[in-house]
């Protein structure tokens, strides 16, 4: 089995080659088969690997394969080598599994594209899957960075998929540039790691972290912080979150796959993967947790007042990613990854459901012109309900278990303030998610009559992935039922924690697998269920029962409403304090430094100098042969005189 690791990323790469080179000629039918097919096959291989891995003793669940010696130089080596342990196995399953469903969904969603666009779309989507698999399966920093950049590139390509519209292209560029800032930090982190450990292989660095770094040391702090800067960019945390809402310009399945389920969680995965380093830097971990909690609350408040259905989901994603960072920040790596997995299910479903709605309304994304879609789209309605319950944290849906795990661990680690932020955010999550849900599916339809007639349930290629993800949103959390709730499924227990325990054994305190349950855990659990229910009811009260009330509230709390509507003017602040000065600096570098000094003085100056010198020198070149002979003879004479007389 170990030799089969390369097959998993190779399959999507085959899809890239086929769709990219032959897709246009092969036609949409073939592409619709190959594009999802290769990812499905990769998923099948991943399942086989998973079965194999489960069959091994818990301590030996680690597969390595070196495919190719990529970079070799002196003592430095960075092979193309794959590592599959429970952590990356989890990620591979999520990426290929959810990815496969979204590929299938895309066949229906993108069917209006022509052959060219269709093939291009699946080329990019397969390329993304390949890069993401590279990221999660890499066994060294450098290969991980290749995947890291690869997913960033695909994100850029897919956000700007409909690049003919200038706004879409701008959104793609914004995502790319903001990500570059984070990638810069990541790269610095890798340099620091290499200079400290003399290697970039996880197998060399991670076990040695304890010996090479001192707990709370400066070096550990900076390595962890720079690496986290990469995560902040990729996973859209404060202050680099601004690209994600704009990234909604891409096709909706892309938002589901890249900007909800997989790529944006790469930062969480990275922190979890490198947890031995973070363990050495408690202050860096505190920053991770702080930024996570702040982002969660901050994005949730903005999400409350957005009218674009995808923008609400985008801010929700940022908020949920904040939860994950809160989890890993308090060293509850299992909880963070657990939330990553369940979030992949329900958030992908939410996006796909939103895509289904947008599809039915022919591109309408503004919730003010939706409503009452429940009857026309039953499958979308029920699956969306499952996902909304899951994200709101209503038991027994998936989100409840993972979110509650994070909150409990935060409290348990001694951060009541962070817990409180997470707790409030949980309530806000329920409010804005059910706001979205009620505005979209309940009440009266507020769009045009023409749209109302065309409302239809999506084709099977879209409905089936919705249904599958709906089921997962319900049961996905049952793999991690906390010990506090006993063992309702009989023998499963907290399977997820046990599964990841070998990876994090150094990270989490030993013996915590079956800790005694303090009474307060039940109290906190009840509180978070209560606040989620409260949020649900509040949304129902505001958007179903008293539909005038939201407007009155917005008028009464005008200041707060304006701040939220304008997203705290963060984008404007960036424009004013970063973009404009940077543009001015670039203009200076262009006009004065480049045009003036380099081009004008150096390049053109050299040319002019040579030209002038040649003009002077060419006066000697009379083209008159006897003149040359005269000079030649005079020279010969001079040499002769030197030898005979000198």
């Amino acid at each position, binding site marked *: 089995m170990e030799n089969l690791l390369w097959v998993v990323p190779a399959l999507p790469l085959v899809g890239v080659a086929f769709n990219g080179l032959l897709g246009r000629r092969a036609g949409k039918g073939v592409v619709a088969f190959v594009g999802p097919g290769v990812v499905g096959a990769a998923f099948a291989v991943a399942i086989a690997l998973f079965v194999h891995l489960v069959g091994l003793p818990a301590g030996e669940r680690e597969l390595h394969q070196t495919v190719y010696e990529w970079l070799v130089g002196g003592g430095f080596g960075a092979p193309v080598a794959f590592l599959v342990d429970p952590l990356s196995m989890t990620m591979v399953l999520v990426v290929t599994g959810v990815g496969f469903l979204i590929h299938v969904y895309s066949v229906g969603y993108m069917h209006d594209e022509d052959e060219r666009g269709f093939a291009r779309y699946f080329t990019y989507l397969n390329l993304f899957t390949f890069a993401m698999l590279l990221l999660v399966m890499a066994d060294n920093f450098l290969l991980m960075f290749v995947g890291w950049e690869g997913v960033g590139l695909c994100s850029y390509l897919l956000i700007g998929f409909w690049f003919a519209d200038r706004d879409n292209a701008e959104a793609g560029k914004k995502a790319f540039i903001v990500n570059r800032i984070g990638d810069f930090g990541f790269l610095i982190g890798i340099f620091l790691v290499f200079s400290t450990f003399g290697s970039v292989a996880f197998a060399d660095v991670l076990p040695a972290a304890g010996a090479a770094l001192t707990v709370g040391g400066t070096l550990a702090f900076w390595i962890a912080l720079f690496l986290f800067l990469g995560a902040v960019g990729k996973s859209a945390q404060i202050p680099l979150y601004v690209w994600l809402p704009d990234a909604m310009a891409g096709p909706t399945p892309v938002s589901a796959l890249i900007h909800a389920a997989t790529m944006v969680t790469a930062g969480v995965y990275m922190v979890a993967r490198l947890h031995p380093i973070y363990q050495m830097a408690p202050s860096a971990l505190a920053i991770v947790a702080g930024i996570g909690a702040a982002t969660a609350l901050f994005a949730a408040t903005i999400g409350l007042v957005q009218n674009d259905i995808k923008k609400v989901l985008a801010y929700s994603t940022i908020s949920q990613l904040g939860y994950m960072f809160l989890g890993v920040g308090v060293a509850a790596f299992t909880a963070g990854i657990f939330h990553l997995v369940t979030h992949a299910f329900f958030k992908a479903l939410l996006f796909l459901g939103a895509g289904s709605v947008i599809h039915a309304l022919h591109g309408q994304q503004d919730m003010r012109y939706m409503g009452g879609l429940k009857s026309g789209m039953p499958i979308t309605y029920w699956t969306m309900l499952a996902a909304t319950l899951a994200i709101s944290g209503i038991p027994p849906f998936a989100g409840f278990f993972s979110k509650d795990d994070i909150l409990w661990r935060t409290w348990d680690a001694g951060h009541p303030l962070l817990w409180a932020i997470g707790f409030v955010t949980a309530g806000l999550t329920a409010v804005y998610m059910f706001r979205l849900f009620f505005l979209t599916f309940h009440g009266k339809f507020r769009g045009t009559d023409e749209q109302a007639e065309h409302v239809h349930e999506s084709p099977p290629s879209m409905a089936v992935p919705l249904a599958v993800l709906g089921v997962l949103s319900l049961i996905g959390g049952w793999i991690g039922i906390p010990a506090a709730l006993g063992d309702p499924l009989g023998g499963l227990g907290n399977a997820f924690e046990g599964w990841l325990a070998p990876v994090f054994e150094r990270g989490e305190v030993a013996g915590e697998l079956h800790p005694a349950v303090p009474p307060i855990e039940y109290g906190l659990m009840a509180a978070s269920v209560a606040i989620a229910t409260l949020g649900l009811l509040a949304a129902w009260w505001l958007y179903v029962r008293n539909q005038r009330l939201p407007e009155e509230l917005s008028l009464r709390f005008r200041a707060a409403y304006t701040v939220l509507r304008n997203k705290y003017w963060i984008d404007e602040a960036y424009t004013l304090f970063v973009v404009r000065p940077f543009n001015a600096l670039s203009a200076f570098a262009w006009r004065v430094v480049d045009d003036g000094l380099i081009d004008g003085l150096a390049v053109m100056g050299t040319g002019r100098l040579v030209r002038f010198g040649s003009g002077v020198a060419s006066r000697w070149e009379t083209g008159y042969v006897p003149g040359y002979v005269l000079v030649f003879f*005079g020279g010969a*004479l001079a040499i002769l005189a030197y030898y*005979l*007389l000198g």
Partner: protein
Amino acid sequence: MTGVDLAFWFFGTLAVVTSVLVITNRNPVASVLFLVIAFFSLAALFVTLHSHFLAAIQVLVYAGAIMVLFLFVVMLLNLGQPQWFDVQARPLVIVAAALGAAFVGLLWKGGLLEWTPTVTGPAAGVPEDVLGSVEAIGSALYTVYYLPFIATALLLLIAMVGAVVIARRER
């Protein structure tokens, strides 16, 4: 003063005088004829150096073939009369003459006249009339120096083709 010395003075003077006439005479045909005399004088000087073979070649190739070619071209281009542009401007003529005088003067002062051999070649000691014979030159040419000889043959072939191509009337 031996007969050979007398021959040197006679033919040496003749060569110098005719050469000067070649470059001073305004009539190209006369120049060519003076040059023929100069080449004959050099052939005679070769004889005084015991290289009869080279003297014969000199007469055959230079005085015979090459000079006929010159004469032919002069006639062909109808340049038998003095040309208006024939001589350079006077300052250049003076400078050239001065440079030439300086050159000869330098060599005179440098002691070229008193030069005597300080090294001996591989054929040193061989009688003089054997040294310059056809047999000696021929065996050297076909054994030791066969590669330059072949290269010269090729050069002549290329020159032949080149001359035809260059002088051919363009179509």
